[in-house]
């Protein structure tokens, strides 16, 4: 739902640089020898250039961390998503204290609601301590969905005690744990969705771009059709059509499909544009004259030449999907509690009461921002480095 104006992306290949000039420049940029550069495979050239893109590298590191945490959510989260403590509803974040004799600890609190102001009041018992430690045993979980485990990276040493690193939600659940578990859905929905979009985009964009003519016109009209229907009704209509009998997993997949149905068109356009360009290249003509079958020409000769551009476009489509997931949840479509995703957590936070009295519940928004910005940096860096012979860096 963000209003991204569609603008033609400048075409980095539109003017042909002469080969020597380019390699010379690459030399100075990558600090590598000419032979190294001239003999390096394309992916290596991209990687060299990408590494010089500082923001992209930062983004990459953030993404790696996010995905590792999501993959091993059970281990990184201090609690699981169902454990709660009723009297700690709306407990504000507790920052661990540290002392050399006691290690990390927080003081336990007891919560009660003031009947006059209705505010939850938490009294800290400073005579007691909740000791926190690394690799502690706690709520059980299944690592990668395979291995039963109960060891958590950091948390209360006594599994019965509570510690709210980022505060508690309105049901007394640990927000940090929910954000970590929520990342599993939120971060994967983008990847799966883009994969589906890509498939659609590749097939339709590929056909359109390679064959041109009437096929192209028809597919272009279809794309135009999709693009002229405002996304919101498309979402609402499709999401409302998800059969209610479906479990969370199926709903999740369906939502992903819906997001990708809305998202494939721009990918298809990019792919078509690239194909149209490469179609005219001499090496394609050569392959054709050699009698190479069409499918093979597309997959072996043409695709690799613009794969990097596709990767860049894809990495920019992922964050859009992550944002869309939150929007769908806001609209009351898409996933709903008790499923845990960033969108669901944000939807719970969408109230004046939270903004005014429990602002830490907006933190899942920070997670969204982090992931989306990181993806954009990476995508941006990839786009810049995608064309190792181009002029931009």
């Amino acid at each position, binding site marked *: 739902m963000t209003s991204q104006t569609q*603008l033609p992306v*400048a075409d980095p290949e539109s003017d042909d640089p002469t080969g020597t000039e380019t390699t010379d420049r690459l030399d100075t940029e990558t600090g590598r020898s000419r032979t190294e550069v001239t003999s390096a495979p394309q992916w290596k050239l991209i990687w060299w250039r990408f590494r010089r893109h500082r923001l992209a590298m930062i983004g990459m590191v953030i993404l790696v961390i996010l995905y590792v945490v999501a993959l091993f959510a059970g281990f990184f989260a201090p609690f699981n998503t169902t454990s709660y403590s009723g009297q700690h509803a709306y407990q504000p974040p507790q920052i661990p204290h540290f002392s050399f004799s006691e290690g990390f600890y927080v003081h336990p609190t007891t919560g009660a609601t003031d009947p006059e102001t209705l505010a939850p009041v938490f009294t800290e018992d400073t005579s007691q301590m909740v000791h926190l430690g690394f690799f502690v045993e706690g709520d059980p979980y299944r690592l990668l969905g395979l291995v039963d485990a109960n060891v958590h990276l950091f948390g209360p040493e006594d599994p019965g005690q509570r510690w709210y690193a980022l505060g508690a939600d309105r049901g007394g659940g640990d927000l940090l744990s929910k954000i970590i578990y929520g990342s599993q859905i939120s971060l994967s929905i983008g990847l799966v969705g883009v994969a589906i979009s890509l498939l659609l985009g590749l097939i339709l964009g590929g056909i359109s771009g390679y064959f041109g003519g009437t096929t192209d016109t028809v597919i272009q009209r279809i794309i135009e059709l999709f693009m002229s*229907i405002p996304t919101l009704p498309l979402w609402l209509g499709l999401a409302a059509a998800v059969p209610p009998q479906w479990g969370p997993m199926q709903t999740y997949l369906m939502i992903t499909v819906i997001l990708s149905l809305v998202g494939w068109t721009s990918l298809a356009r990019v792919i078509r544009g690239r194909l149209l360009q490469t179609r005219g290249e001499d090496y394609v003509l050569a392959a054709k004259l050699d009698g190479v079958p069409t499918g093979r020409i597309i997959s072996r000769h043409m695709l690799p030449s613009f794969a990097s551009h596709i990767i860049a476009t894809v990495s920019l489509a992922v964050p859009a999907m992550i944002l869309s997931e939150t929007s769908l949840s806001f609209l009351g479509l898409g996933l709903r509690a008790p499923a845990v995703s960033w969108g669901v957590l944000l939807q719970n936070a969408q109230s004046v009461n939270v903004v005014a009295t429990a602002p830490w519940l907006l933190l899942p928004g920070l997670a969204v921002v982090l992931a989306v910005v990181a993806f954009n940096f990476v995508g941006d860096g990839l786009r810049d480095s995608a064309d190792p012979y181009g002029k931009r860096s």
Partner: protein
Amino acid sequence: MLRFTIHRILHVIPTLIIISVISFFIIQLPPGDFLTTQVAALEAQGESIDPAQLEALRVRYGIDDPFWIQYWKWISNILLHGDFGLSFQFQRPVIDLITERLPLTILLGVATLLFTWAIALPAGIYSAIKQHSAADYTISVVGFVALAVPNFLAALVLAYVGFAYFGQSVGGLFSPEYVNAPWSLAKVGDLLEHLWIPVLVIGLAGTAGIIRTMRANMLDELYKPYVTTARAKGLPEGRNIRKYPLRISLNPFISTVGWSIPSIFDGEVIVATVLALGTTGPLLLAALKSQDMYLAGGIILIIAVLTVVGTLISDLLLAAVDPRVRFGKA
């Protein structure tokens, strides 16, 4: 050019027909209908409607007619009489509801677009000229963060800030004393006071994309031989950039302004809903949620038509500027 124009216009007609069918189909997808939605809303408040009564109403509203009959009723009235039907929910003609909201929607859309460009274009140009500088990175980060903040959240938080620190009456585009008042200078001032939150939220989110594109376009042009030539000939740098690369980089923005039309309608929906602005967005959302099909269908159709026409104009503009487009080569 003439041939291209006619060709292109002819393409629009089947597109519009299919869009109208799809629009109508989408709003019919969800289970239930306007009446069940109404009943549910009443029940939530402790009221109930007799199921027999419901059945009778359903027959009366023609809700149980098959899809094609409903579609035909709808589209033929639009084409033959310009009648978009009645909104069940508002009990008013759809066309009135839409037309009275269009001016504010367009005002909001245009204000947002101008705001976005006013921020993003200079930022993009500056980024390109000072490539890899701290400023370049800062602009990237700020742009992406603005894009990344879910806009419903941003709207709520800003609304709360307006309330908590400025004592502002949140919601709507007017304060209570001006809503039903005739237009006056004070009312315009009041409007501007309320306009900043939505413009900021929607506008900032859109900057990132334009900054990136502008930066890329500029970078492409900056290294072209003609720029180097001009520089070598001693043209002052500022003048050099203004005169050539800037103009060429801006070209696509001007000629594709038509493509921004859907974003005017789409971008505002959630924000306008949170802030209860009197634009088409909340109207569309409410209509979709309550399955007020003539209203929803009417809005979708109008947006789609505007989009198609906008794209058409953009394409024609592009073709006029760049002959390659006319021959399907670009």
